[in-house]
């Protein structure tokens, strides 16, 4: 059977289509919903979204691949996003990033073989007053020290 979004998500998308000037404008909201329900957005998921919005699948795929928040391959359970833009770099962010690489045994952009962690260097997250900062999934951590990084990674790997 073809892949489908949950009924709740489909209902939500239908509702939004009523409120937006065009169905296609519901693209990003729909892809956000799909990202919550599937580990990543493959062709089948894109097709499901395309059917709901009444647009060609390639259009959905074209959009999904443009934005960094829509994964097109499996991600670790914990996504470690360390900001490495200027203000954070001025407070040692790039050292932290290298430390995270060593601790997790992977390089930036990779996922650990057990699927627990994905590590990324990300652009300024508008929290430069708390530099260096990082996200663990949706949770923001500011003024991250090496000790704090180690502790958080340890917590996450022992399943907290």
């Amino acid at each position, binding site marked *: 059977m073809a892949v489908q979004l949950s009924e709740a998500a489909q209902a939500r998308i239908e509702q939004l289509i009523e409120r937006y000037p065009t169905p296609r404008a519901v693209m990003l909201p729909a892809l956000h919903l799909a990202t919550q329900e599937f580990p990543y957005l493959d062709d089948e998921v894109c097709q499901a979204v395309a059917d709901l919005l009444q647009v060609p699948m390639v259009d959905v795929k074209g959009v999904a691949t443009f934005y960094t928040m829509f994964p097109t391959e499996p991600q670790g359970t914990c996504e470690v996003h360390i900001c490495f833009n*200027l203000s954070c770099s001025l407070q040692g962010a790039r050292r932290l990033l290298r430390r995270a690489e060593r601790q997790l045994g992977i390089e930036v952009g990779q996922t650990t073989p057990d699927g627990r962690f994905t590590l990324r260097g990300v652009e300024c997250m508008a929290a*430069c007053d708390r530099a260096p900062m990082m996200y663990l999934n949706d949770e923001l951590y500011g003024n991250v020290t090496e000790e704090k990084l180690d502790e958080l990674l340890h917590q996450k790997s022992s399943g907290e």
Partner: protein
Amino acid sequence: MEPIITRHLGTPDLWRLDTYRAHGGYETLTKALQEHQPDDLITMVRDAGLRGRGGAGFPTGVKWGFLPKDGRPRYLICNGDESEPGTFKDRLLLENDPHQVLEGLILSCYAVGAHLAFIYLRGEFFLSARRVQEAIDEAYQAGYLGENILGSGMNLEVLLHRGAGAYICGEETGLIESLEGKRAYPRIKPPFPANIGAFGMPTVVNNVETLANVRHIVAHGAEWYNSIGPERNRGTRMWCVSGRVRKPGVYEVPLGIPLRDLIFDHAGGLEEGRTLKAVIPGGSSSPILTAEEAMEVDSDFDALQRAGTMGGSGGLMVLDDRVCVVQSSYIISEFYHDESCGQCTPCRQGTGWMTKLLHRIEHGEGRPGDVDLLLSMGANIFGRTICPLGDAAVWPVESAINKFRSEFDHHISDKRCLPGTESIL
């Protein structure tokens, strides 16, 4: 001076409607809907001289006046994409005081006659998304949104629209494309959004802080607003100070105060034993200032422009004497290259070449002539692209070379940073 926009920040639960109302929230809207015609509000905002806080400093009332009166529906978009490196004021407002932004937005929609508005929020602002959605829901329940708002006959729908990770969505036409469900490829202007914007309709795009200002202008009038800041540069600015200062943070001060006061008084100055080397005043794309220049310049739009740079997004980054300007330039250049949407060859390719060359110079592999090559690459990008991201990538590098040339040359001759600097890479 008492802050205006940030006055109540720090009040517990300010994001809730009750708390916001306890501090006078929505009184301005209630009064304005009874006492003013939409055109009065446009006049007020124009006479106040409010200039956009999103980057370009364009007069808001003038922008609103560009909307053609041809009966087509109009949309208003609040630009909450905040991704210019070094900028973190919109997030602060959206997380802590979303109703203030909403009230400004509703007043602005009343002024321009929009019945549908979007808050385009940066995708990674998870907490803001929750707080803004809650605020919108509360506002509907209280009758500040929806049909026949407060019995005035005004109708307004507001949708929170989350981005998904792409810097270029901050550029207004990239934002509009993204809102329409497409890749955020900026459009060639003209036509301007005021005429053909979102969904082909006349559209106003305003920054979060700009809309918050509208609320206070409507509350206290243009004359009051004109008492703050120098001529043509009225009001306050929420400066985001970060980098090598003791107290990084958002400081709301009248436009035009000396930049050095911002750094040395408000942000607490530099760490013991460090000296100021350079300042990037308005987000990472703004041309860099030497310490001497930064000590002399005032913080208003025009003064910064006269000094060859810009207030931009209000993201002020401080570099001290231990920072290598080649490294900071490389980090900035890499950012614009990564975020180029790829539509224009000079931007897509040129930013890549510049970044590579900066990397080579930084790594001690630069060759004589490389610095001039960088300048000529910049000249080939500048002004030859669809949107200003191309220029934004050139300004920081070009200005750094012009002002810190010896540091670049040193990297080529001695193959490393100046003595006394510490790597940030």
